[in-house]
């Protein structure tokens, strides 16, 4: 076991835990945001740099601070480590910088983006972003491409978190999905367009933190905050069959995995459940899904909202004050 102190809160965690995981065990405002890390995907994380934290004391044995901010998702804790996240102005500044970089070439087309409302980049920019942009050049754009029949890739919105690449590497059987080119113009792609035909490829949509990978059966049907999420399950021979159905009136508009507060799915689901079972009679409904994320998506579901304790720590985050809206 290792004792680690994050923002003056001490917790004991098993050896080998990352700083991010330790922070999630504490919960609340000490948790650094993570755009590329995904617990269920091996070797994910380290790319987006939003989860940077300052290590003030390396460990009990070697109390020297780490010279640079470290990616909390890929740095394991040491006994006696002292970490600063929200209590370090330097880190807040660095994070604001990273958010600015992520938004630099992002089209900010939220009004026509299907992800809006449950988008992690949207949340991140509300919490850590600046008003306006200092980038005055033309943004880079890409053509939309179809990868498989049911998935559309809109590379212009991509932040290159590599999560979908890890899904393709680790969940599906053939490696046909990856990154091409380099630097600013690197892009997610398949070797041959439309080549992803695989039972679990749809999970790319779930892991995508932005609106780059979208469900073609749901595109432009509705806005997420107009839909009502219900937990449901069915007997499936490929996956656990545990899903969230998103209803508008009587219609199931889309099916996704069940996501936790960090947007990570409980179980990866198969494409049959996701794309083909869109009738209430296909499913056993369990009841309304709980959404405990601070996102636009909760705005029409305030009755189901976040426990009070969690709400109170929000004012620590710069930017929009969510508390007022929730209380009114």
């Amino acid at each position, binding site marked *: 076991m290792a004792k680690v102190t994050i923002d003056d809160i001490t917790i004991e965690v098993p050896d080998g835990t990352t700083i991010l995981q330790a922070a999630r065990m504490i919960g609340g405002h000490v948790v650094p945001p993570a755009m590329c890390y995904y617990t269920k995907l091996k070797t994910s*994380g*380290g*790319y*987006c*740099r939003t989860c*940077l934290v300052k290590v003030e004391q390396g460990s009990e044995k070697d109390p020297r601070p780490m*010279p*640079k*901010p470290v*990616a909390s998702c*890929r740095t394991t804790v040491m006994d006696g480590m002292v970490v600063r996240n929200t209590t370090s102005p330097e880190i807040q*500044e*660095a994070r604001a*910088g*990273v958010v*600015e*970089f*992520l938004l*630099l*070439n992002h089209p900010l087309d939220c009004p026509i983006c299907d992800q809006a409302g449950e988008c992690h980049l949207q949340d991140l920019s509300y919490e850590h972003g600046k008003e306006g942009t*200092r*980038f005055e*050049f033309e943004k*880079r754009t890409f053509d939309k491409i179809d990868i498989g029949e049911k998935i559309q890739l809109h590379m212009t919105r991509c*932040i*290159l978190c*590599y999560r979908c690449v890890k899904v393709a590497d680790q969940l599906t059987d053939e490696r046909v999905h*990856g*990154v091409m*080119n*380099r*630097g*600013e*113009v*690197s892009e997610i792609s398949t070797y041959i367009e439309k080549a992803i035909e695989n039972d679990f490829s749809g999970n790319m949509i779930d892991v995508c933190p932005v609106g780059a990978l979208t469900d073609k059966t749901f595109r432009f049907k509705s806005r997420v905050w107009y839909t009502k999420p219900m937990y449901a399950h069915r007997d499936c021979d490929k996956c656990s069959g545990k899903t969230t159905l998103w209803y508008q009136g009587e219609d199931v508009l889309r099916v996704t995995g069940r996501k936790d507060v960090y947007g990570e799915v409980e179980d990866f689901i198969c494409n049959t459940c996701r794309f083909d079972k869109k009738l209430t009679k296909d499913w056993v409904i369990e009841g309304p899904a709980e959404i405990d994320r601070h996102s636009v998506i909760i705005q029409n579901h305030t009755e189901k909202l976040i426990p009070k304790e969690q709400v109170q720590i929000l004012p620590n985050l710069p930017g929009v004050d969510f508390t007022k809206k929730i209380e009114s």
Partner: protein
Amino acid sequence: MGKKLLLQNIDVPGINTYEVYRKTGGYKSVEKVLEQKNPDAIVEEVKKSGLRGRGGAGFPTGMKWSFLAKPEGVARYLVCNADESEPGTFKDRYLMEKIPHLLIEGMITSSYALGANTSFIYIRGEYFYVLRILEKAIKEAYENGWLGKNIKGSGYNLDLYVQVGAGAYICGEETALLESLEGKRGNPRIKPPFPAVAGLYGCPTVVNNVETIAAVVPIVNDGGDAYAAVGVERSTGTKLISASGHINKPGVYEIEMGVPVEEFIYSDEYCGGIKNGKKLKAVVAGGSSVPILPADLILKTAAGNPRLMTYESLADGGFATGTMLGSGGFIVMDETTSIVKNLWNFSRFYHHESCGQCSPCREGTGWMEKILHKILHGHGTIKDIDLLWDIQSKIEGKTICPLGDAAAWPVASAIRHFRKEFEEYVNNPESIQDVKHYFNVHNVAEA
């Protein structure tokens, strides 16, 4: 003339062939280590020599070697980093082109010290003709029994391969190099684990620069103490400097550590002074990524002491008034040079070479280049200069690998020391005439 340890035989005709190299005392170090049969003693000698990594970071080589994990039954690898892509640096090319056998001898000796039975030289794609030279030399070494099974009857086996890169600066970063060597996309890995624990194919690996490995030969031949006697303080031995820019005698020079910078620039033994009798304006002392220094600060430290060609002296004053020895790419600029234009050229390079894995570098390098392009063409504002400063501070130290730092440092130092010149570009754009032909090249990455 200063003492030479690497290039002393460079002018012997035919030194690139095995016979001549052998006649001038080549492969003696291999004979010595195979006779002594004590790999740890070689590591000790290297530690004693004080040799520091010649690729740029200057990490003590002996220490790096002693960090190598040695689990039972797991292969160890030595990889030579010949992906010399830093703008302004061409010393490794010269060495490999002229005396390829020196590198091969160093590789055998070092591999023996580390207990590696398979070693690699990863060479950049642009050095294709050097690859041919190396391959020929390796063939000669195999034919004469210096490589292969049971080398000279010692029972030690070593296979040496040359792998050619596909032309990416980032593959000079050691973990990206290993990825590329494994046949993957050349993206830097997230450390830890360090290569000494899990490197090539997950096995313990040491990655060393060409010059570092070549320097092992004189260390083994003459002993670590003799090597440490050359140079000053913690900068021991000799260093290859690639001198370029506005000087009378550009080229590769082997210097003893501790030569004053002033002597290096002005003496006839080395650079031979500034071309056409012009005045010195600035120097980039160790390859494009190290901070640029104005003439007064490169010749003398902020405290007024003469600046020497050593790791410590060049770094004196930190980044506020100092720089780094880096890889030894010594770029001299005379009074006619435009710092802004030069900086844009560097930034364009880093924009083009960013691997795109982590966001600050991927987005920031392009942004800086665009702003510099704007300033260079007379459309800049004072706010743009401050913005550049802010962007570089948000890249430096926030990225996975040092490419982010390498892109940020030149920008920071140019603004720190030459802010007036940037302001001149902003305030009097009509006085600038020399940039028109660059107008359409800025989108090289997209092209």
